[in-house]
């Protein structure tokens, strides 16, 4: 009887522990640009077999992005890989947040996307004081909606290295 009690106690302790399974959120690490190279080196028939499973719009977006990547020069690809490695160093939540903001950006009409990109390039080249003046100016406020201004701010913030977070200069 004592052995049976011990066995039941063992089961009672072990099964809930085992039932928890592997830790959640243990996502596979992203394969990185090498996965794109691997995709590029697949025979066309194999690529087609994979792509045919995707819905038409997703497939088109995928193929467009691969084409854009393939058009980059070797130097640009190398620089982008470096940026990608840095991005991977960010906490997963930050990466996900950056992706969410970027998807919102991609949903903007193309002319607005262009405006925002041009503006961000202009701002990047300014000294901090000049940048501040510009983003506080009435033309800037008129040109960009509050959502667009927030998008620009969030993209800069989420893509910055961890040490830069909590900047005191967010004024958009």
């Amino acid at each position, binding site marked *: 009887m004592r052995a049976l009690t011990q066995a039941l106690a063992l089961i009672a302790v072990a099964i809930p522990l085992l039932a928890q399974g592997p830790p959640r959120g243990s996502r596979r690490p992203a394969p990185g640009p090498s996965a*794109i190279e691997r995709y590029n080196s697949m025979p066309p028939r194999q690529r087609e077999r994979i792509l045919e499973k995707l819905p038409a719009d997703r497939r088109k977006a995928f193929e467009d992005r691969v084409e854009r990547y393939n058009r980059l020069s070797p130097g640009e690809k190398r620089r982008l890989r470096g940026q990608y490695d840095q991005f991977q160093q960010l906490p997963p939540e930050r990466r996900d947040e950056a992706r969410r903001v970027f998807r919102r950006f991609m949903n903007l009409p193309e002319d607005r996307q262009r405006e925002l990109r041009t503006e*961000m390039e202009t701002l990047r080249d300014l000294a901090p004081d000049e940048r501040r003046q510009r983003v506080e100016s009435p033309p800037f406020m008129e040109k960009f909606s509050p959502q667009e201004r927030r998008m620009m701010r969030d993209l*800069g913030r989420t893509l910055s290295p961890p040490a830069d977070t909590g*900047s005191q200069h967010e004024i958009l």
Partner: protein
Amino acid sequence: MEEVCYLRNGGEGALVDFVSGHSGQYAEVHAHAAACADCQRFIAEQAALWAALDADSAPEVAADFDRRLYAQLESVDGENWWQRTWRQMAGSAMSGFGRPVAALSLAVALIIGVAIMRQPPTPASAPVAADRPASLQAVNDIDQIEETLEDLEMLSLFANAPRSL
């Protein structure tokens, strides 16, 4: 809306069709299985079974196979194999030494059983993933390539964005 698990709802047939490549609902099964460890395991086991069946031809059966088999089953004292097994187990459990051993064996067997069921499929036990280019693995890869491409596009546009505005 909660997704219905094929395995838990009697839909093994749909999973078998999926493995055979004759599924009329490939996309649905794939979408579910990509997130369901149980269905993935079932698919992997099914694929392994098919692969084994394809690979191995059945050995030739000896002429007196049936006769020898029945002779073994209906062995001495007219006792069937299961009667003999049951008697041995019962005898062991009723003896002073057998009781704790039987109880502990039961406990250990249960724990090992649960542990095995909780194991995620390993690459070695998931031939579907390894062998089929249009399989779950390939589509998982395409998801990851898509994510990488999206990241690269974002970085190409905004990696040098002003850190603070």
